[in-house]
Each structure stands twice: as structure tokens, then as C-alpha cells.
């Protein structure tokens, strides 16, 4: 199994610089999460990795060679916008897509059968794709991604639009693929999914990488600056803490709040304030910040830097 290296890649569409000097590495046996808001350049970068487009400058290499038709055969790609041929029968569709990946017909037929059985979908083989329910179509889409036993996998917003059963199924598949030492790239703007699955992350904003590294290290680097409280009683103290500039609250519900310590506020100060105000405290924890906070932090910083440089 092999490493994917994106090296100082640039891509411009018309007047828009979609990808600006992006570099990252995806190691086999690990999951790399490429994160960023819509328009950050994730899909443009993926299109260069899949060899659908070619970088204006820089290079994308897999297993030591520049990507091309040869790497497309080893690639399994689940695009953000998913779709299949509506009027083809399921089996025929999968065999065709498998053949496009360079499989022989017999081999593609056998693998299709294997995967249909594995997903308890063998009975659908002769149904037309648009006769299937949405959830069934999603399974067929997974099979199309995995059919040719790819060693490099790219999932672009894989969980969007999936029903809960298929979400779990896909998560299991992704983890199984990681155990097999495949190289997995996972693009999303949903931070909580990335936190659950990824080993490494690459944060993108406005066509650039703003933060890259192992998820655990990055979180440690930001320190345990976040407090979670669970309580019964009046929550007005939270507003007082925030007004005093001691914390910033990310998430808040009637009996629970997650907040970031600001201006050197000690955890103990928050604990004291909480104990004074609430009837009962049943949870108090000091943790690393959630990825979404790190993201807001980093992107906010780059954006304000940009603003300064524009002003200058």
C-alpha cells in the first residue's frame, strides 16, 4: 500500500484561484480528513488527485508516480454528488463501472455478486436502479466505489444524505479499509464526523492549507482549554461569565454548556461560579477543544491576517 503526496499544487478556474499552493500527505492505514467550508478548494483538490483535472503547477503523486489513468484503476471515489445510471439494472451497472476500472467482465461479475451478497442485496441485481429506494441506491453506490478493490479511497462528504443505517455501514466499511492498510482521504465540512474517524487532518480555507497534522497532536497543541459543565438550576451565571470576558460558550442547552476559557481564566474560577449559582452540579470536565473550535480559531486568524494585509 502506498502514500499519496499532494505537492505545492495550484489550480485556477477563469479568475478564481481555487487551489493555491496546497500540500499534504496521506499515509496508508490512516484516514486523512480534508476539512474546510464550502468553497475552500476541497473538491478542486480531489479532482486533481482523481486525475479528472490536472494541476496548473505542482504535482500529485501516488506510490511514487504522478497520478494518471494507471492510478485511476486503483482509486475508489465516492463523489459528494452521487448518482447512477437510472435505467440500467443494478448488476449490469456495477459490472460496467467495474469494467471501466479495468476489470475483466467475468471478474467484475463475480465481485459484484460478492458485494451484493455481503450487503444483503443479492435480490436487487436485476432491478432497475431507479426502482430502488434511496437507501438501496446508496448501497449500490458504495459497491461501485469498492468493487475493484481500490488501494486509494476518496470519500467526498460521504455521510451527507445517508440514512442512519447506511451511515453506520459506511463508517464500518471505512474502518475496515483502514485496517487493510489502504490510503483513505475523507473530505468534509462536518467536523464531528471527522473527529470520530480521522487520524490526520488537513484544514483548508480559501484554497489554502491552514493547518495540517495528526489530529491528536493538533488538539494537544491547543491544550485543554475547554470546560464542560452539566447542572440543574438557574443558568444565568453562564451569561455573567461570558459578559465578564472569562469564557466563550460554544454550545449550550438547559442543563449543559461547553465553553472556552479566555484571558487566563482558571478552571477553578468557572467551577466556583457554577457551584454558587446552580442547585446541583453533576458534571465538570476539562477537555481539549472540539475540532470545530480549532477550525474557527485558525480560519478566523487567517482571515483577520488577510484583512490586515489588505488594509496595509
Amino acid at each position, binding site marked *: 500500500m502506498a502514500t499519496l503526496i499532494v505537492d505545492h499544487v495550484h489550480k485556477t478556474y477563469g479568475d478564481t484561484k481555487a487551489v493555491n499552493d496546497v500540500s499534504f500527505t496521506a499515509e496508508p492505514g490512516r484516514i486523512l480528513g480534508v476539512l474546510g467550508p464550502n468553497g475552500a478548494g476541497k473538491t478542486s483538490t480531489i479532482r486533481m488527485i482523481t486525475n479528472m*483535472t490536472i494541476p496548473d503547477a505542482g504535482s500529485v503523486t501516488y506510490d511514487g508516480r504522478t497520478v494518471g489513468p494507471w492510478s485511476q484503476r486503483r*482509486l475508489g471515489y465516492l463523489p459528494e454528488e452521487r*448518482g447512477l445510471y437510472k435505467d440500467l439494472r443494478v448488476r449490469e451497472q456495477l459490472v460496467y463501472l467495474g469494467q471501466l476500472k*479495468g476489470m475483466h467482465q467475468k471478474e467484475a461479475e463475480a465481485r459484484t455478486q460478492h458485494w451484493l451478497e455481503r450487503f444483503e442485496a443479492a435480490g436487487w441485481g436485476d432491478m432497475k436502479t431507479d426502482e430502488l429506494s434511496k437507501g438501496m441506491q446508496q448501497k449500490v453506490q458504495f459497491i461501485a466505489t469498492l468493487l475493484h478493490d481500490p488501494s486509494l479511497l476518496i470519500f467526498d462528504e460521504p455521510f451527507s444524505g445517508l440514512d442512519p443505517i447506511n451511515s453506520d455501514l459506511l463508517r464500518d466499511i471505512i474502518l475496515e479499509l483502514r485496517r487493510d492498510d489502504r490510503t483513505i482521504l475523507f473530505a468534509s465540512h462536518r467536523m464531528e464526523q471527522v473527529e470520530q474517524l480521522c487520524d490526520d487532518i488537513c484544514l483548508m480555507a480559501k484554497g489554502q492549507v491552514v493547518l495540517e497534522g495528526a489530529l491528536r497532536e493538533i488538539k494537544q497543541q491547543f491544550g485543554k482549554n475547554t470546560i464542560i459543565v452539566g447542572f440543574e438550576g438557574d443558568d444565568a451565571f453562564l451569561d455573567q461569565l461570558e459578559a465578564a470576558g472569562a469564557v466563550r460558550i460554544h454550545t449550550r442547552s438547559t442543563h449543559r454548556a461547553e465553553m472556552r476559557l479566555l484571558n487566563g481564566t482558571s478552571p477553578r474560577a468557572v467551577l466556583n461560579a457554577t457551584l454558587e449559582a446552580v442547585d446541583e452540579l453533576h458534571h465538570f470536565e476539562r477537555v481539549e477543544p472540539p475540532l470545530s473550535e480549532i477550525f474557527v480559531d485558525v480560519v478566523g486568524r487567517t482571515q483577520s491576517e488577510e484583512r490586515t494585509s489588505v488594509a496595509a
Partner: protein
Amino acid sequence: MHHPIWIIFKSEFLRRVRSKAFILATLLAPVGMVALFALPAVFTFMALDGSDDEPIAVVDESNRLLPSLQARGGERFRFVEATASREALADSVHAGVYSGYLVLPETLLQGEGQAVFYRAEGGGVTTQARMQSLVNQTVQDQRLADEEVPAAIESILASSTSVEMRRLTEAGDQADQTFVYSLIGYVLAFTIYFAVFIYGQYVMQGVIEEKSSRVVEIVVSSVRPFQLLMGKVLGIGAMGLVQMITWGVLVAGALAAAGPVLMLFIDPASYNVAPDASQEAVLDAAGITIPSLPLSLLFWTLLFFLGGYLLYASLFAAVGSAVERVQDAQSLMYPVFIPLLIPLLVLGVVIEDPNGTLSTVLSFIPLFAPILMVLRAALTDVATWELIASWSLVALSFVATIWIASRIYRVGIFMYGKPPSLRELLRWITYRP
């Protein structure tokens, strides 16, 4: 391992050819066409064959015209002598006893006045013309008889001189079938036009479906966009070719069967031909020509259809790649549609003068050649080198259009949202992938 273009070609071809819609269209279209042309003729014939019509009452004031009018009228127009007053006749017509009544004034025999035919219902252009000619002939004969004109002069007046057209060829002179070949050329030209247009639309729809269902993303992460485009264009082209050849065989079969079938309805005796005369002789005597299509013409028709299809299909594909819905393609279609339409506007010019400068030049312009060269080849003997040269130009232009189309296509399939203007579309040609 097979080439991607071959895999795509096979899939596109098979999934269409085995669909019920294709099989029905292929088998029923010729039936539909024949019905479209034949049924009106059959109905007209049946309407004319109205021997069960009510008789026509004749008020013959000359008392000399009725017998010969009756003889001429035969089964179709049954003339009877009027025995009642005009008012009573009108009532009888309304009551349906007579289909009408005809008044022949005595002055007709002096060459003055006119006959009047009264009837309750209008309509029947053929009936009017027949009635006109019956009365005219009857009056003319009677007047000639009255003047005791010699039989020789009578026969001169009755005769009409026709001109037979014969065409000089290297093999000697032969019957000129300009009219028949114009008709064949016309049919072939329209067939190519419709085939290119309809199969081109199939390609466009295929591209749009692939794009709007987003399956194209998966396909082009496996093969080059050019390979997808090429496989699709060739696959649908092969489907078209199968359809055209099937129709060609059906038409050839119908023409081969037409002679024997017609013979069943024709009595050789009624055309003064010996009962054992050959089929050609009988049909010739009956004034029926069954066109024979030279094989070389069919061959070139197929080749030019294929060339024209490939030329236009790649452009249709480029337009399809730019939009997500068929409706959005309309405004982008004009640059493709208009060159395809122009040959139809000059069909008349080419038929009138197939070897004229304009016809010749137009039949070498690749975008027009598929229709116009086939039309010329049907009308006149076009030299083989001309056919080859014109077709080669079409083939070369295909290389150019598929190159342009694939550059637009590989950008277009990733463009979602507002459909582009024509100017933007053309700018995509210069984009890097």
C-alpha cells in the same frame, strides 16, 4: 483488457438496442411511413369509387346529348332523364333520390351558354373536374357530328401529343426517370436530415442525463472524458446504423415485393398487353414505375449518414455537456441546428440543377455535404472521386469537431448552475483540463 472506448461503446449500444422502444420504433416506423403516404390515397380512391351514389337527373333541353352523356358517365356517373319539373327535381335532390340535377340548355350546341349542375352538397374537386370534362366532351362530339366534320379531323382534335424523356448514358439511351430519382433523392435527403438530427439528440440527451444524474463524476474518475464522449457517440451511431440498415432492407424488400403484389390487382387485358407478358411490360403499360435503388447509392447514403452523424453528434454532445436540462440547451443549439437546416432550404435548387456550380460547391461543404451530396448522387451521375473527396472532407471535419467538442465537454461536465452563453462555451475550448 479492453480499451475503455470499446467498453463504453458496447454498453451504450446494447442498452439502447435491446430496449423495447428501439425495437418497436425500428419495426413500426416503416409501417407508419407507408400508412402515412398510402392511407390518404386509399381513402381518396374509395371515395371516388362511389358507384353507389344516387343517379343524376339530366334536363336535356337539346334532346340530343343525354344518350352519349350516359355512355360516357358509365358506372361512376349514372345519368337519368329528368321527368319532373325543376322544383320537383330540387325536392328530389333534397330527399336524396338524386345526388343532383344537371341542366343542359339547347344553346350549348351553338357554342353558347353553359350547363349548370345543381346539387345539395359541396366538395369533391375530382367530381367537379370529371363532370366538367364529361359535359365538355359530350357537347364537343355532338357539335362535330352536327357539322359532319370528316373523321380525320375528328381524330386530330381528339389526339394529344406526349413527349417521352430519355436519358443518354454510356450504356445507350434509357428511360429518363428524373421524377422518380428526384423523389428518391428527396426521401434520402430528408432521411439523413432526420437521422442526424434525431440520433444527435439522443447523444445530447445521453450526455445531459449522465451529467444531471452525476454519474459522470464516477465515470470520468475511471476514464478520460474524451473516451467517454467517443464511446457514447460511436455507440449511438452504431444503433442508428442498425436502424437505418433494417429500414433499408425493409424498403428493398417492399420494393421487390411491390411488383408481384401489384400484378395481382392488374388485369393485363385492360392495358392491351398479352396475358403472358412479363411483369415489367405489364407495369410499364399500366404506367407504374417501381424505382430501383442502385446499390452504390445506398452505400454512399449510409456512408454520408455516418459521416454527417459523427460530425453533428459531437457538437450535440458539446452542447449537452454545458447544461443540466434539455430545455436549457435550446439557445445553444442554434449554431448546430442551422447548418443542418440550410441544405433543406436549397433542396429545390439542387434538384433543379444538380450539376450547377452552386449545387456542386455546396455538396463539398462538410456541414452540408451529407445531405446534398446524397441528393446529387441520387439525381445524376456524380463521379466517384467527387463522392470520395466530399466524404473525406466530412471525415476530416469530424476530427476537428470532435476535438473542439471534447475540449468543451471536459469542462462542461463539471459546470453546474446557470447555463453558459455561447461565448462562454467557446471560451472553454481554451481551458486547461
